[in-house]
């Protein structure tokens, strides 16, 4: 396809650039020891020298990278114990890889051969920028996880944790979650509300989406606008309206009040996902089934349903997570008897801050990962079934 040029680059280019990376690492170590400038200089000189040796004197990549890896790890251990060793190993691996990536010119491998040096620079500067944005997106979620194993009641890393001292870690916040009545009650409330709300939205939503996919439906746009509106109207307004209206009906503060409210909030997601699945649905299949003598109910369950099932399930998962995560509406429509997990977290964050929240957060993240994986797999399966994408 493209002609790739991966020719070795001169040491005069590779060594100083690798040195810059080393200088950054040195800066971190230096500031931690109250002498950033010295750290910067040492980092630069060490790495540049290392690059000079590996590229100019002893060019055996495998050995060179192992040596760098282990040496940096040892250095880190001497400077800052176990945690230092870990960071050192990471830096060692990175710098070893970086030196050869530069020296062998591999960085150009995936770029068109005509790109100028400036364009190459911009290309990688852009990649670094994107990396930082991904870092911003993911760090807060990742940071929560180790903190939930904190042995102290703090919301931050203790020195013991940073030294990787086992005494700094414990499962006590998880234990608290599973033994504390408030949290257990909240968990059971969440578990009893979300599935019922989901079933309501999926049941009504799927039928309506099938109806909406018919080309002859009058007022299609107006109906769609009404059905999608629970997703668009700010939650606080929905919550306020439901609070006023459900109090009139005597539903405020009851289990069914919360379930109905959550079902209404979940409906747009079901409508959107199922309608999207139906876009590629071949109507001649139902006609063929009817032609062969199947009645509409059989056609629906034996022909249409299996094909749109992925959309229905992922719509249901969206509706489930909407109800499971929802806090504003339940705050107003529910009473203390319907306190859900997010509500308990919300009061926890506002009043008595306890790291149990972080344990709950970690478990919720794991649930989210599982749901995300399921939805992604379903989406791909659905696209494959409908022939929209290969593989």
């Amino acid at each position, binding site marked *: 396809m493209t002609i790739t040029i991966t020719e070795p680059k001169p040491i005069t280019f590779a060594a100083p650039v690798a040195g810059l990376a080393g200088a950054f690492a040195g800066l971190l170590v230096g500031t931690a020891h*109250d002498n950033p400038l010295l750290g910067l200089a040492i980092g630069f000189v060490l790495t540049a020298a290392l690059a000079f040796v590996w590229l100019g004197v002893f060019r055996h990549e495998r050995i060179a990278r192992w040596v760098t890896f282990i040496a940096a790890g040892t250095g880190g251990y001497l400077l800052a114990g176990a945690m230092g060793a870990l960071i050192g190993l990471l830096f060692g691996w990175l710098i070893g890889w970086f030196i050869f990536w530069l020296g062998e010119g591999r960085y150009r491998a995936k770029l068109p051969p005509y790109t100028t040096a400036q364009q190459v620079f911009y290309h990688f500067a852009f990649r670094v920028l994107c990396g930082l944005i991904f870092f911003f997106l993911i760090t807060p979620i990742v940071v929560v996880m180790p903190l939930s194993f904190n042995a102290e009641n703090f919301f931050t*890393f203790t020195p013991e944790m940073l030294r990787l001292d086992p005494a700094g870690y414990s499962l006590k916040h998880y234990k608290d979650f599973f033994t504390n009545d408030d949290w257990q009650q909240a968990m059971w409330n969440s578990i009893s509300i979300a599935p019922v709300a989901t079933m309501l939205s999926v049941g009504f939503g799927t039928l309506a989406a099938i109806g909406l996919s018919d080309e002859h439906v009058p007022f299609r746009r107006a109906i769609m606008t009404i059905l999608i509106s629970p997703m668009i109207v*700010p939650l606080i307004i929905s919550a306020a*309206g439901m609070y006023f209206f459900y109090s009139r009906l005597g539903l405020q503060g009851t289990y069914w009040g919360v379930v109905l409210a959550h*079902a209404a909030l979940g409906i747009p997601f079901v409508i959107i996902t199922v309608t999207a699945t139906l876009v590629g649905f071949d109507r001649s299949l139902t006609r063929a089934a009817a032609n062969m003598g199947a009645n509409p109910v059989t056609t629906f369950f034996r022909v249409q349903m299996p094909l749109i099932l992925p959309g229905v399930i*992922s719509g249901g998962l969206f509706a489930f997570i909407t109800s499971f995560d929802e806090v504003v509406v339940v705050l107003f429509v529910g009473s203390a008897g319907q306190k859900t997990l997010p509500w308990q977290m*919300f009061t926890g964050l506002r009043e008595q801050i306890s790291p149990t929240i972080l344990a709950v957060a970690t478990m919720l993240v794991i649930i*989210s990962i599982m749901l*995300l994986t399921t939805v992604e797999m379903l989406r791909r399966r659905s696209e494959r079934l409908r022939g929209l994408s290969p593989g």
Partner: protein
Amino acid sequence: MSDTTDTGPVLAADGTPLKRSLRRAIRAQKLRALALIAPLLIFVLVTFIAPIADMLFRSVENQIVSNTLPNTVATLNDWDGTGETLPGDQTFEALFYDMFLAAESKRHTRLGSRLNYEQAGISSMFRTSGRNVDEVGEDQVEALEDLNDAWSDETFWFTMMSGPDDAPKASDIVADQRERLAKLNQSGFGGEVGFAPSQEIADLLPRTVRAYTAFAVFTAIADEDVVAEEEPWEAVKVALIEDLRAGADLSGYQGAGAEELRAAQAGLADQPEIDYKQAFIDMNEDWANLENWKTIKMYAPPFTAGYFLNAIDLQKTPEGFRPRPENEQIYIMLFQRTLFMSLVIMGSCILLGYPVAYLLATLPSRSANLLMILVLLPFWTSLLVRTSAWKVMLQQQGVINDTLVWLGLVNDAGRLVMINNQFGTIVAMTHILLPFMILPMYSVMSTIPQTYVRAARSLGATNWTSFWRVYFPQSVPGIGAGSILVFILAIGYYITPEIVGGTTGTFISNRIAYHISSSLNWGLAAALGSILLFAVLILYWAYDKIVGIDNVKLG
């Protein structure tokens, strides 16, 4: 050759014209589709649209004044609210009966706090008057009871008011009082009262019968007591005194208590008139304050724009709309802050989202799918998890500050304040809403062919020109879709500003929640909500025009 000469309509298999047969088939299909949609539509209308409509109604509804003080409001129609004189004695007399009933039903404090939103200090006026209203006309009532012990006797009263069993009854008065109490107490006043006044006594002593009937209905239904076993309220006795003084003609009356009534009319002749106005002013001198009366008259109609005016820092005065006092003007400022911060959040989402969406759209699909997980994971993670994560990150003893101190960039005393202010809200909400910007951008950008940029490049455009003149204009619809989505979501956010916003980083929605759950000023909450809803609906409409709600994609 018959088919070419036949000019009649094309026929379907069963002999009907094809056109009609087709129309019938389509109608059946339409009905089937509507039947599938109907259950959901009804469900959403009841569980979601009706509550919103109810909220809109509440933002203008103001029946509490006319429900609590119906007689007073009726007499105020004759009073010119712009002059310098207080309403007449008639109004104060009506106020006495209204207040008495309101105090018995314990509704006067509610009216007080309602009117207090418009005129500060008015609630204490209602509170103290409700407590002391049974002291009005004390001297006269004592004089009446001194004349004959029968006036404190419940059976005597009951027999006198009911008249003989076979006498014609004035049951319309019972229905009137029942309806009035139902409105006052905002609950149904159905049920057996066990009392109906005789028509004769109702014609003779109209005030007394009205007051006694109100007492009877309240006793039987709200207190669940037997009417004949309870001594009437002071208000009933005051009403009797007024009836007698007004010159009720007792000469022809022969029913129960005729003797006592005549004796009372004669015995009370030398008692001074009851001065209602002075009595109320003695209870609380604010009743002499013209402004309070103007407020009551102003908010007497059943619907009001007062909550909306309040929501934009105005108030209604007899001279027209005036700005509220400086120290009460907060809502315009809050709306501005909500708009400003939503714009900043939208802007930072564009800045951060654009490069990522571009990267995802240009990478080969395998690596793009992997990186997409990094975008979708925050999208799927609970909102509260992300908010608590930011609390952990941003607080003064938090991860970011600890890292900065460890690196020596700030010293331990100078830890940055990044939470409970606007900065905290903006950072956390940018993070939370970023996926909503990236996903629509990505779906637009992945349809832009890379060849266009290469063509521009090969025609001599620089890096910048080929991006700005060729790629960027094609990606604008994605920016538009993402921006409106993020803006709509940001403008109504509640949870995140509540937790990381402190006092300077809160939105209008936090104020709405405050009015619903803490200050209980539901009308104002509904008015603020309606304004916010209106703004969102305009944006929703724009979104529908630009993107189309059918094209919303999730993940």
